[in-house]
């Protein structure tokens, strides 16, 4: 089976990988690039655990072919912290106990950052609506919503 | 002699007997004595039975002492999610 050569940018780094045409971006990230921070919960775009940014758009990496990544810029959870310094959302998630098992956490953090990038001052309802595509079975969402709102407050310098 | 009380669940294996007096010093002896008296009960004892000795529940505590006039109630083991 001939494999496709894909060169793309992940978290600012130029990377290359080979993939089968059927392979999804999620599979390429996890299996070819060993970036296992992005999770698979369903493989059908219903849980959001595989959320990544592609050219500034929030998408499910399980619903995108790896070959489509050619020449794109991809951001994953591995690129969220700046070296040692956690992103405010990451800090607030720990502070507010907004994670338990943590399997949904990378996807929710990526989605939450995408929200705050376009709306620095969201209401609770806006946060809940934006995160509706990210399933969490542990927390009941309460502390997740608190953490996002608190991070937004801090990022606004409030 | 300790007072031994069985929950209704076990009645089918003890010909309906739900209460008896036994001279046993710990849970292991209790299970042994009951097993000898009611062979059908034997499999159920270690598999699925916990005991409440004077209202304190013990699971898998074969060496737990049983006082002379303790009340011992046999109940089903609890697991959970």
């Amino acid at each position, binding site marked *: 089976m001939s494999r*496709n050569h894909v060169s793309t940018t992940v978290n600012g780094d130029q990377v290359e990988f080979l993939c*089968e*045409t*059927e392979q*999804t971006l999620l599979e390429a990230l996890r299996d070819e690039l060993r970036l296992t921070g992005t999770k698979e919960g369903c*493989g*059908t*775009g*219903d849980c*959001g655990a595989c*959320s990544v940014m*592609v050219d500034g*758009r*929030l*998408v*499910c990496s*399980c*619903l*995108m*072919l790896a*070959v*489509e990544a*050619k020449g794109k810029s991809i951001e994953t959870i591995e690129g969220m912290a700046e070296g040692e310094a956690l992103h405010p959302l990451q800090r607030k998630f720990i502070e507010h106990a907004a994670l338990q098992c943590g399997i949904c956490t990378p996807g929710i953090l990526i*989605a939450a950052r*995408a929200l705050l990038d376009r709306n620095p001052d969201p209401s609770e309802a806006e946060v809940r*609506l*934006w995160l*509706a*595509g*990210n399933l969490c079975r542990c927390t009941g969402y309460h502390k997740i919503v608190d953490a996002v709102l608190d991070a937004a407050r801090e990022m606004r310098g409030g | 002699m300790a007072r031994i009380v069985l929950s209704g669940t076990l009645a089918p294996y003890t010909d309906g007997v739900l209460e008896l007096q036994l001279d046993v010093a710990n849970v292991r002896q209790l299970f042994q004595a009951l097993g000898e008296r009611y062979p059908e009960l034997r499999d159920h004892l270690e598999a699925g039975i916990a005991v409440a000795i004077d209202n304190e529940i013990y699971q898998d505590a074969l060496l737990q002492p049983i006082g002379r006039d303790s009340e011992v109630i046999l109940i089903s083991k609890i697991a959970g999610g």
Partner: protein
Amino acid sequence: MRYEAPKTLEQALALLAGANGKARVLAGGTDLLIQMRSGRADPELVVDIKAIAEMRSIAVDAGSYRVGAALSCMELIENDAFASTWPGIVDGAKYIGSIQVKGRATLGGNLCNASPAADGVPALIAAGALACIAGPQGRREVPVEEFVTGPGKTLLAPGELVVSLLLPRRAPHSGDAYLRFTPRTEMDIAVVGAAVNLTLDDRGICSHARVSLGAVAARALLVPEAAAALIGTKVDAAVLARLSAAASAACRPIDDKRGTKEFRIKVAGVMAERSGKIALERAGRYD
């Protein structure tokens, strides 16, 4: 399986023509990838149309919008001018999955997937949109209500694809709305969907209306009887009740895991009445 991302429509058509039916068009991929994963689709060639400028753009010409078939729902939703002209179509786009899914999914794909429950379609039908098709025999335009022929079936001939969706010019005092019913607030497939598009004259009388229902038949329906209930009236409570009754009467639903016939028939009327109210309120905005 081969992947191609042509830059022009001509190249795309050539690729489709060369694949004798073994090719699938890839727009957002939010349906196609799931079908491939489950084995329901096993194409030899995937033609990604997102590199074709015409299909990724949204253009307005003398008040008439042309929405590229590969434009993502998020891109459409973020287009304020379009959203204020066709808020009902944007209602539909907003319901197509999560933010993540809408970042990829397209109205064109939603139409071509031909699901009876497609959230993007009823508002397009109510709007009187045309599907602009290109193929070996050139281009043609088809009313959206005629495009889907049954569950998973469209009138696309081999080698054809949808290039864009063409919307009519908007008369003043017009408004449209789409509402759907789902058990959850989000992340669900419509159990029933209803779109209402209407235009009021200067006296506030409804001069034009189109009503469409989703998930109550083998394909999204245009319901002239429901529209007739509105036209020539001031669209008061009694009229909306007639709209509701006409909508329920038009349903030909099935029982399935998502809802019963009985439930769909009742709720179709409720959704139609509620989106009628919203459309009316939006039409008012143009006063």
